[in-house]
């Protein structure tokens, strides 16, 4: 009995130790790629791109996608790395580059790039220099850049005989005029304001935060000594807060409880006059069903014209045993014709717009937005914490719980605590 038990235990251990694992099978290398699910629509286009060209060119390399929800992507990537089971190919949201690099998740690509055919000059310089490059090394290849615009309900504007707004003040003017009780029952049915997704902590930096940028506000920046300091307490930020506080008057009273999906549905149904429209919304079925009901315009600027960019990158896992194969994927993707067919948003290189599907006239507007796109803040590791701080103070200010001054001073103070801790590591 004891002998049988021992043999059984030995067999179990042998199966676990030697039976698991993937990687190489009959000369075909399988790369594990962590990404978003297919129903996100966004990054699965990359997998289609691989089907349309990469596998033909490299039949001995296969890519196996491991999909995780957006909210869990960074957590899953980091914990897999800590547990020694890191991925070969990693989908990197641009704010996470600094965090991943400092945590040792990503492999530097400089030596690979130096010996390859990739022409880094083809990439949009702003994305590569600010995001892909971190602390003097290159870590990612950008492949899907995001840009934003302002979607306006055509019928609402036409019925009121209003022109589309061209400044932040004009946005408030039209918001006021378009907020109304349509059926006379004393209840507002139509909201002229720009909907705010309170649940999304990035909103006051990326989405509605475009108008923070437009007003000249910025969360933090480097001083002359290369140290990071909070710069949020500025006239531009003050203007932005007062503007967004006024905008709240033209939105539902329970806006704080609305989710992003509720907002999309409500805009599609014609409840909101304005909507923060990103290029990824081109894949949103509810909006595409009603695409003839809204127009897209440049974000009305004030001090500064532009749209907030960002986007997705691919990185090489530092734990990967197949780095050469991973590099082949990144190299293939960096060719303009391949990037065009694999990018789910906008390819971060002008040359790619000469290839399908971007060489049709349909993408001219987004190319223009892409050219104007800029990152709202540097993607340093404490970025999430600083955005969280800003989000809390901004929400309290626009809900009337604190004054604008208290908001700016409080946010600046708390952000500086976080940034000073980070500066010690530089």
């Amino acid at each position, binding site marked *: 009995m004891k002998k049988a038990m021992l043999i059984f235990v030995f067999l179990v251990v042998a199966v676990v130790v030697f039976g698991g694992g993937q990687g190489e099978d009959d000369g075909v290398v399988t790369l594990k790629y962590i990404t978003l699910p297919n129903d996100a629509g966004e990054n699965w286009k990359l997998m289609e791109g691989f089907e349309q060209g990469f596998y033909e060119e490299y039949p001995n390399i296969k890519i196996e996608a491991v999909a995780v929800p957006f909210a869990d992507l*960074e*957590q899953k990537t*980091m914990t897999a790395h*800590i547990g020694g089971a890191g991925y070969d190919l990693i989908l990197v949201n641009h704010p996470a580059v*600094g*965090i991943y690099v*400092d*945590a*040792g998740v990503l492999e530097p690509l400089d030596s690979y790039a130096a010996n390859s055919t990739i022409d880094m000059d083809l990439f949009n310089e702003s994305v590569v220099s600010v995001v892909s490059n971190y602390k003097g090394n290159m870590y990612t290849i950008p492949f899907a850049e995001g840009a934003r615009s302002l979607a306006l309900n055509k019928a609402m504007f036409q019925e009121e005989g209003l022109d589309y707004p061209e400044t932040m003040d004009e946005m408030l003017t039209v918001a006021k005029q378009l907020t109304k009780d349509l059926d006379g029952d004393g*209840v*507002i049915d139509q909201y002229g304001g720009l909907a705010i997704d*309170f*649940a999304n902590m990035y909103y006051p930096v990326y989405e509605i935060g475009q108008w923070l940028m437009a007003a000249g506000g910025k969360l933090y920046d480097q001083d002359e000594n290369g140290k990071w300091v909070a710069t949020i307490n500025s006239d531009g930020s003050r203007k932005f807060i007062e503007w967004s506080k006024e905008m709240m008057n033209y939105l*539902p*009273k*329970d*806006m*704080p*409880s*609305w*989710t992003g999906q*509720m907002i999309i549905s*409500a805009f599609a149904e014609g*409840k909101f006059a304005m909507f923060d429209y990103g290029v990824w919304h081109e894949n949103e079925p509810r909006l595409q069903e009603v695409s003839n009901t809204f127009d897209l315009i440049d974000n009305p600027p004030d001090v500064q014209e532009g749209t907030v960019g960002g986007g997705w990158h691919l990185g090489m896992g530092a734990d990967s045993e197949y780095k050469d194969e991973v590099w082949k994927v990144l190299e293939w993707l960096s060719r303009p014709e391949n990037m065009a067919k694999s990018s789910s948003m906008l390819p971060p290189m002008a040359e790619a717009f000469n290839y399908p599907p971007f060489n049709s006239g349909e993408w001219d507007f987004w190319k223009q937005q892409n050219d104007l796109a800029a990152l709202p803040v540097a993607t340093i*590791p*404490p970025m*999430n*914490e600083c955005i*969280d701080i800003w*989000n*809390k*103070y901004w*929400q*309290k200010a626009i*809900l009337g*719980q604190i004054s604008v001054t208290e908001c700016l001073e409080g946010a600046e103070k708390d952000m500086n605590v976080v940034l000073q801790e980070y500066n010690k*590591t530089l």
Partner: protein
Amino acid sequence: MRKKTLKSCDKIDYLYLLPAVAVIIIMLLYPLLANLKYSFIKYHLTDPSRAFVGFDNYINALGNPEFYTTLGRTMVWTISVVIFTAIFGVITALLMNRKGLSSKLIKAFILIPWILPELVSGYTWKWMLSSTYGIINHGLSALGIIPVDFSWFTDPALALTVAIFVNIWRGVPFVTIMIYAKLKVIPAASIEAATVDGADHYQIFFHITLPFISAQILNCAMLVFVWTFNAFGIIYSLTGGGPAGQTETISYLVQKTAFRYFKFSDAATFSMLMFTILAIVVMLMNLASTFVKSKGDFDEN
């Protein structure tokens, strides 16, 4: 010969306990000790040093105003849920113990809130309370009880109250079942004797029933306290910690610190402080339960 056989049996018995012990060590003891270790080092994923920092993490946590604000909010959340879950649990159990239609209805539906996953409950209530899409808001505004565009989630105190209500709704079934089981074993002779002596329903409840079930109530309260103090899913799904982070509880703070800021040592420190608070509370409640049991006049047997 017989003695040797008995000893062999004992050894085999211990062998059968090994899987359970392994689970306890892997799932409970190891994480606890690892957490304790992380609370004494600097373990930020973006800083590979992992240097030993002594009690610095605890000093920073206890010197952080946000910790006290969040802890205070967590205690309000927890104590409110415990008190009202106990009250409504007892009332529901008493109703369930009576003969009649109410008892049958309660028995049919009581477990539904308990078996629904936490996140499902949170998201469902969030939608029901939406001013634009919510059936509850629609009904209440049709009755003129609230305005049409009334928001449950804009005011932080009201948002927390809603979260407390939803968690009470989820917790009442457990307390009900536990109290109901205890009610079924109340000595019938005691109640009959009291009735014969002229005691009314209130006197029977306060002098016989309540003392009999009080230890059970305390035990349930202790469990509900622990579960509520640690609860994350309801807050995450219902309010997202908002508005402006004003419904965040300690467990939400831990999750955010660990998986949004990747500051594992800070999160571990908050966790150890949570563990300490819970240990003290559980110990006090155990003492209270022992005291109540020792004062009890009833013997189930």
